[in-house]
């Protein structure tokens, strides 16, 4: 595969849930080797986009190509083969609660390879060392903090040496120290392992410090695309509102409702 070709290529994608359109004619290209951030207000379908890229849900129309494979044309078996080349970090870590930290990281190796126990141990300890949690190998998921769970999940996501690493809201609910650790890991893993990272987030400040390119989604489309610094000076009210964290703007503060005074003065039974 040509290094210059995009690893993810989305063309004219439409996707709706219960007749409510989430994406209309979406076009996105994600370049290899970069950290790409997908941002947007809550409810714009950022996580849905990840689910589409990973083939967990199917688009209504349009095409999604990941590492040269058209997801719509893939059988389940071929999709599973493709997924072995991807790693995904879920919002809450999604560790298997009945397995220890070590076994969680070893899980993909045990399922997909016939490696010796000694080699599995070495690989797992190497990955745990990379996320700073080799000392927690024997702990159970219930004993870990939120930040530690996410780091273990990250070790599990990279244990099969993926080409593409996907992060779903990796900063939610983290204290500043854990957040700094995750940010540093995203950058370090991307550069040292030579992979491509997609980070879905709405934390403008954090993601701007680590992303190479940003796609800002709103209303089912990409409303802005560029480097984090380009986005700060983007000539669009939607982008200004999102980047500046303004309470009112194209995304209104008030959810659509009947006239305020009319409703206050009406009898309660009329509601």
């Amino acid at each position: 595969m040509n290094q210059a070709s995009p690893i993810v290529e989305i063309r004219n994608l439409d996707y709706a849930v219960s007749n409510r359109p989430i994406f209309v004619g979406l076009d996105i290209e994600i370049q290899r080797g970069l950290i790409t951030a997908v941002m947007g207000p809550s409810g714009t379908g950022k996580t849905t986009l990840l689910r589409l890229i990973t083939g967990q849900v199917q688009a209504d129309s349009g095409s999604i190509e990941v590492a040269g494979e058209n997801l719509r044309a893939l059988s389940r078996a071929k999709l599973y083969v493709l997924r072995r080349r991807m790693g995904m970090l879920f919002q809450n870590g999604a560790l298997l609660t009945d397995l220890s930290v070590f076994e969680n990281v070893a899980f993909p190796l045990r399922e997909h390879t016939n490696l010796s126990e000694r080699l599995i141990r070495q690989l797992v300890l190497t990955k745990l060392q990379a996320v700073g949690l080799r000392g927690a190998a024997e702990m159970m998921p219930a004993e870990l903090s939120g930040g530690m769970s996410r780091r273990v999940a990250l070790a599990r996501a990279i244990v099969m040496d993926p080409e593409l690493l996907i992060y779903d809201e990796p900063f939610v609910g983290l204290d500043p120290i854990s957040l700094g650790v995750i940010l540093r890991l995203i950058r370090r893993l991307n550069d040292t392992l030579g992979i491509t990272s997609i980070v879905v987030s709405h934390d403008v400040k954090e993601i701007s410090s680590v992303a190479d390119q940003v796609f800002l989604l709103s209303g089912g489309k990409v409303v802005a695309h560029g480097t984090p610094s380009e986005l700060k000076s983007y000539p669009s009210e939607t982008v200004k509102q999102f980047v500046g964290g303004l309470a009112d703007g194209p995304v209104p503060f008030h959810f659509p409702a009947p006239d305020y005074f009319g409703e206050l003065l009406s009898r309660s039974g009329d509601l």
Partner: protein
Amino acid sequence: MNALRELWQSLTDSLEKLGAVIQFLLRLIANSPRALMRFDLISQQIFNCGALSLVIIMLSGVFVGMVLGLQGYDLLQRFGSEEALGEAAAIGLVKELGPVVTALLFAGRAGTALASELGLMRATDQISAMEMMAVDPIQRVVVPRFLGGVIAMPLLAAVFSVIGIFGAQLVGVQFKGVDAGSFWSQMRASVTLADVNMGIVKSLVFGVACSLIAVYQGYYATPTAEGVGRATTYTVVTSAVVILFLDYLITAAFL
């Protein structure tokens, strides 16, 4: 007219659900041969569903047997045939009470555990994480639990019946003075292989039904606290009704 339409709608909904459950069962059966290759995963589930249910099964078995001994003695002594207590208790337990009560207890103890475990796995993205790791959750998680339940059920029913017979013997022979020789010899003379087979068939069918309902409800639970709670409740209620319905069908087929 509206009532008729609603009735028709609920009937078609129920049939649709039944079709989905049968389709799910076929998927489990299709995946079973590969799952059997990794028997360690299944034996772990036999332990979870079977060994961990043993205490409740044995306790219930002894009490059910004791009640059966007491009621049986009261009835039989009216006709002067209390020596037949062993036969009555054994046939009642092996053919009917053993499989049915075990299945009802299994649904409450192991079925709810299966449904809530799978529901929580879905709610905490563990199922999605497996799919993302290219591991089929049906193959890795659901089938071992299903097969574990199917294998555990007849074993538990056998334990229940044996303990129940000892319970009946305790009340009949020790407390009420029925002759021990008559109790055991009449039982041996009258309980046939066909009676035991009927019990085995029932507990196998109940094992499939209870485990299927539990894993289906858990796997397709709405991924919220309320959804997991609902899946657990439905597991017990649906299992109880299905067990009693199937019990009638199998009894009618055998007799």
